[in-house]
Structure formats: structure tokens, C-alpha cells
């Protein structure tokens, strides 16, 4: 076996079951650490017209222009002014890079697979992008399905924005 494969395996290993936890309001959410590229503070955001309001615009990440999504708005919670605790989590799935604006980043936690359960069948907006509920001691962490977070069509049709 070559070194590269070993390293890859090792990385795979160290990232296993790890989730980056962030908070919105009182809820803690988890993102699979493998999709996270980096965490940065809030940046000047360039607004882009013709987009749904949860896409706040684009930022310049060292020359790469990436869109940023306000997760609060995506979850249909009310808008809150950004402050120095506000973070942007840059994630990449399926070659798409997006920044997620969250209230604050908490920690990296290990949640073993057996501690993650199927989400309850609730149609509430907050659960549309949840793929599992992880138990972490006494509290729960909502595991985010990044693919759905990025790609799920909104309930409102996009044409509404083009009026």
C-alpha cells in the first residue's frame, strides 16, 4: 500500500463520527466534519439580486467567490443582525462550495453512529434539512443533510422573486 492511501485511510479514521456543532437560537446542529472546509468570521457580503432571501450574496474567499446562505433564514427563522459571534462555515459537497452563516460555532463532537436516530416525521421547516438526531449526553444535536440544505427547492416558487 502506498503512503497516500494510508494517509487517506488515517484521515478517514480521524474524521469518523465527528461533527461540527453550531447553534441557532437554542438549537445545536451538527455538520459532518468531512464536508467542512474552514470556519471564518463574518465577511463583507456582496448582495446578488434575483436570489431567494436566504442566499445573502457572495463573499470573496481568497479569490474564490462563494455564495453564502443564512441558515436562520433557510430554516425560516427571523433575521438577526450579524455580530462578532456570527460565523461562516465553508462547506463543500458534490463540488459545490457554500458558506453557511450561523449564530455561532460551538465545538467538534464525536457522535457515534449508534447514537444517531432517524428524525421524527415532522413537517416543520426546521426539520426539512435534518437527516438524523444525535444524542450527546443529555442533549440532542440535529444532524444536517447538506445536500438537501443546498438543493431542496423551497416551498415558495422561485418565480416569486422575479416580480
Amino acid at each position, binding site marked *: 500500500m502506498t503512503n497516500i492511501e494510508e494517509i487517506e485511510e488515517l484521515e478517514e479514521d480521524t474524521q469518523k463520527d465527528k461533527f461540527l456543532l453550531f447553534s441557532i437560537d437554542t438549537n445545536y446542529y451538527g455538520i459532518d466534519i468531512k464536508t467542512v472546509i474552514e470556519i471564518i468570521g463574518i465577511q463583507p457580503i456582496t448582495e446578488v*439580486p434575483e436570489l431567494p432571501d436566504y442566499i445573502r450574496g457572495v463573499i*470573496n474567499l481568497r479569490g474564490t*467567490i*462563494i455564495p453564502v446562505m443564512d441558515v436562520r433564514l433557510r430554516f425560516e427563522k427571523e433575521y438577526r443582525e450579524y455580530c462578532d459571534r456570527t460565523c461562516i462555515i465553508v462547506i463543500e459537497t458534490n*463540488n459545490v462550495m457554500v458558506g453557511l452563516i450561523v449564530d455561532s460555532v460551538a465545538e467538534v463532537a464525536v457522535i457515534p453512529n449508534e447514537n444517531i436516530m432517524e428524525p421524527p416525521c415532522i413537517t416543520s421547516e426546521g426539520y426539512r434539512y435534518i437527516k438524523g438526531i444525535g444524542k450527546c449526553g443529555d442533549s440532542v444535536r440535529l444532524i444536517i443533510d447538506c445536500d438537501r440544505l*443546498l438543493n431542496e427547492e423551497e416551498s415558495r416558487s*422561485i418565480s416569486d422573486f422575479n416580480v
Partner: protein
Amino acid sequence: MSDKQNEPMLDMFLFETQELLNELEQDLLLGEKSDSLDLAKINEIFRIMHTIKGSASMMFYTHIASVAHSLEDLFYCLREENPKIVDYSRLTDLVLEVSDFIKLELEKIEQGLEPDADPEQIKNEMNQMLQKIKQDNMEMEEVNSMEQYKVVIFFDEACQMENMRAFTLIRELEDITNDMVYTPNELFDNEEALQIMRKEGFQITFLTNIGYSSIQQIFAENPFIRNFEFVEDLCEELVISSNHDDITSCSDESNCIKIEELKVEENKADKSKIEECNIEEHKAQAPNQKMISVNVNKLDVLMDLVGEIVMLEEMVMKSPDLEGLKLPNFNKTATQLQKLTGELREIVMSIRMLPLSFTFQKMHRIVRDMSKKLDKNVEIVLEGEETEVDKNIIEKISDPIMHLVRNAMDHGIETMEMRQRIGKPITGTIKLSAQNVGSDVLITIQDDGKGLNKEKILQKAKKNGLIVKPEGELTDKEIYNFIFQPGFSTKENISEFSGRGVGMDVVAKNIENIGGSVSVDSEEGKGMIVYLKLPLTLAIIEGMNLKVGASVFTIPTSIVKESFRPKSNDALMKEENHEMIMVRGEVYPILRLHHILNIKTEITDLHEGIMIMVEQNDQKICIFCDALLGQQQVVVKALPSYLRRMNQMKYLAGCTLLGDGTISLILDLANVKKK
């Protein structure tokens, strides 16, 4: 050595060999135009084959090495023995065959297949060629002792009838040489020739076995020669027909060329020294020597780093710690730093831009190959090859252009016989040109062939149910452009070249995929022209930045006619929801950007903001924004794919990074106006 470790070397081998072969073809085809091959080119081809031989055997591709070796041998003979009779056309064919052979093998290697072609046949052919050259030139032994001279002569203007003087001189020289060319070569009834002789002198190039001093004497003694000099230039290959009295007869049939290096100096040692340094010079001049290949990923990283530097610099300059401090030295240095980083940024941006020349040059080969096979005589004319386009775009337009050229060769240009019959020049012409038009790059492929058949297209369009409006309302251009519809090929029989199941619709799709557009125009019997309009995406444009609310937008400066602040006495009109303004007696519609883009701004009174008059597609319109921020060169980046996928960006053509790292959105005004 495991395979994995070997990979970078293999990549390098594949890459380098391919590059070398491309270089080779280019050299060769340019040479074929002048129907000769000069020493520099022979050396170049020899060098390329030598390199390929070396690296192929390193990689244990012995059959590639052996083929390269055979060709190297052939060129060794050309270089060392300097043969006078070479069937040039055959030689070119052979070199191209070798190039193709190796290319095919490389392709197999690239795809992980076993490179298994049999090199024997092609090696045999080269051997035969080598033997033939050697044989042909044995009889020419005495010629070998001949030396070549080029002389420029100025006749005494008082001697009158300079053309006759030249003619007499030529007659005189015929005593000492059989091989001679001279310019101007039309000496009689040619007022122009006289002018040329007076201005540039009368040039004679000839081959002779009498010594330099005797030759010099001939010119020195001629009473009508005011001045003469021996010219030495190795770059100019000398094409002289020996054994043929008629110099012009040296054409298709004989296909003879003479490959001669110029020897003027008598001193042998001196001579070889001069040759050597001349060859060195040639190498230095060859464009390929100035190029290095860089992994594109590295360029991307470089670009990002520079972006970051620029941003950080901005932060340092505007650091709150500096506020209120008087720092003359700091400011001075800072300004210099700013200037340098600005330049750095520009250079890095321009690195990704490549001229179209390489893509264009490739067409020579296609035209050449097809001309031979289709029995058509076609010349390809290239224009604007130096136009620079982003590397990504070049990669994507190469195939469409190739396809269109093939199509023109195959279906456009008539056979020689046909052309003769209908009174067209026997040689057809395909013109490939590129230019910057505003913020686009426009590439046109034009041929003087038979053009499109409107009736046939119309019928087919009807059959395919493409016609949605009354036939009478269709313009010619609309009809012609049906050929870009899927499954549209009026030619039933598919040929080796442009058949292959790829139609014009694929060309159109490929171009549209990178945000470009295709259109065609034609005149039956006279030819057709295809326009490829490539988008601004990734191209560098001169942009004008404007502000609306908190946002910055960029529009291509090329479309801006003027900008002005509307005065209170300017005639403004409002009709329903359409605002208009009268400028110098003309009425133009007003487009409020804040309105259309739904941006909050305090400046909504037309007298407080700025009007920018833009022109696109022959339409003028006044755009209203808060303020103008200035002008700069910007690299157009595509919007993130996530956004493009999410919504059709109607107003945005892309985005760009401004000098301070902020993002500006590039407006697509063609679409803004449609709304």
C-alpha cells in the same frame, strides 16, 4: 519503481512529446507553404526527433523510439549532406505520418492501453526515402562543391534602363551559374520593377563553383553598378532549380527543392562559427523557447494568493491604528507597494490568457490533409490569431472551430474542377479570424464555397416542424440558422471528415455551453460565414464600475457611450411606467438599476444620480445609477455554480474582484433591456 511513482514521469513524457509533435507540425506546415525547408527547420525537426527518441526509450517505448530514430536519421542526412534534390511533399507526408503514428501511440498510453502499433512499415518508408535522397544526390556531386551567393545590387541611376542593365548582368552571370533567382524578376514592361531596383536594389541569388573573389570581380568591374553587397542570411531558404532551365517549372511534378546554407565567407573556420551562432540565434528566436508550461492549478493558487495580498494590503493601509498619525515615509513606501501589487495582479490575471494562434494554426494541418484527400485546393487565411482568450475557453472552442473548418472544406468549397467551370478561382479560401468586439471575442469562419441552399433548409425545417411563424416572415438569416437545430444536416451522405455523427447542432450547443452564441449567414454560390461569439466569461474586460445602493456593478466600458448628470431642465418624460429622457433631440428610454435589481438606495431622484448611455445591439438606452466609481480591467469570473443552478441569472453575466478584494457583479445589459 512502482507504477504510481512513475506516473508524474509518464505525464511529463506524454505532455512533452505531444507538445513537441505540435511544434513539429507547425514548423513543417509553415515550411510547406514556402515549399522548402531551411537549415533552421531541419535542425529543429532533428532536435525534436532526437528528444522524442531519447525520452521514449527512457520510458521503454522502444517502437516509438525506433520510429523517431529513423526520422532522425533522415534529417541527419538532410543536415549533414545537404542534398539538393528532395521530394519535399513526400518528406512532409512522411514526417506527418510519423507524427500521427506517435500521437496515436501516446493516446493509447494515455488511456492505459498497450501501445502496440507495428513500426516496421513506416520505418521502411523512411528508409526508402533516405536511400532515394542519397541516390538522387550522388549524381549531383559536382553541384555539392558549389556555393551559394546572394547579392544586392544598386545600379548607377545615370546609366539608364536599369532593367536592361539587370538583364545584361543576368546574361553575364549565366556563364558561371545554372541556378539563379532574382528579384524583381519581371524586368520588362514593369515600371514597378524599376522603382524596386532603385529603392531596394536588384537581388540575385545564385549557385556557382567559381570562387568568391572572381564573383566579386564581376560585380566590381561592371561599370553601371554603383554599389553592391553580398548578403548573408541563413533564414531565407534558397530555392533554386538546377537541371531545369525554367525556374518556374519547379512545381508539383518535380517537387524539387534545394536545401542550401549560405556560405559567403571564404575562411572555413569563420564560416562554421557564423553558422553556429546563427543557429543559436534561431533557437533563441523560436517562440516555443520562450514558453514554459505551468500546471493550471498552480495559476489558480497564485491568483488566489494575489487576491489575498491585495486585500491584506488594503487592511494594513486602512488600519485603525494608523489613524491620525503622520507617517510620510510609511505612506511613500505604501504607495509604491500598492503600485506593485496592482501590477502583480494584472500580470497574474493575464497569465491565464492565451492567444488563439495555437488553435488556429492547427487548422493548417486539417486543411492540408483534407485538400489532398478531397482533391480540393484550399488555402486557409488566419487573422487576429494574437487575440487572447482564457485558457478554459480555448479548450472548449477548439473542437467547434475544427468542425466548422472541416465542414467548410467538405461541404462548402467545391472541387477544383467545379470551381473552374463556374469561374471561381481554383483555390478556395477559408478565412478564420478572431477579434475583440466590445466585451466579446468574435470568431468567424468564412469560406468562398457554394454556400447554403435556402430551399433545402426550408423544406427540411418544415419537415422537422421547426417553423413557427408564417414562411413569408422568415428572413434569410433565420432560415440559414435552422442548420444549428438538432438533427439538421442537409447532406445525406456522411463523409470521412465532417460526418462522424457530429452536426452543427453540437457545435452550437458547445458554444452555448460556454455562454457564447453561433450564427450563420450565406449567399448561395458565394460561400458562407459562421460567427462564433464568445462570452465575457473569463475574459479580461475593461469595466466601468458603478454604484447602486450598497452594491457595486460592472459594465463593459466598450458599450458606454457617455455618462452625464441629468439637469433639472433636461426633458424627462413618463408614459405609463416608462421613463424617457431627451438628449440632443433624441429620446432614450431610462432604466433605473435600483428598480430593476430591487436594491434599496437613497438616490432615486434622477437629478441626484448619474445617467450612463450604453449602446448594445444597435440600441441606445440610459441607465440610471447612484454614482460612477471608475474604470478598471477586470477578470470576469463565472458566478458560483450553486447560484447559476438555483436561478437563471437574467441580469448578471458574472462577477469580478475589484482591486480591494470586494466583489462586483457584472451586468448583462442585453437582458436587462429585454425586461
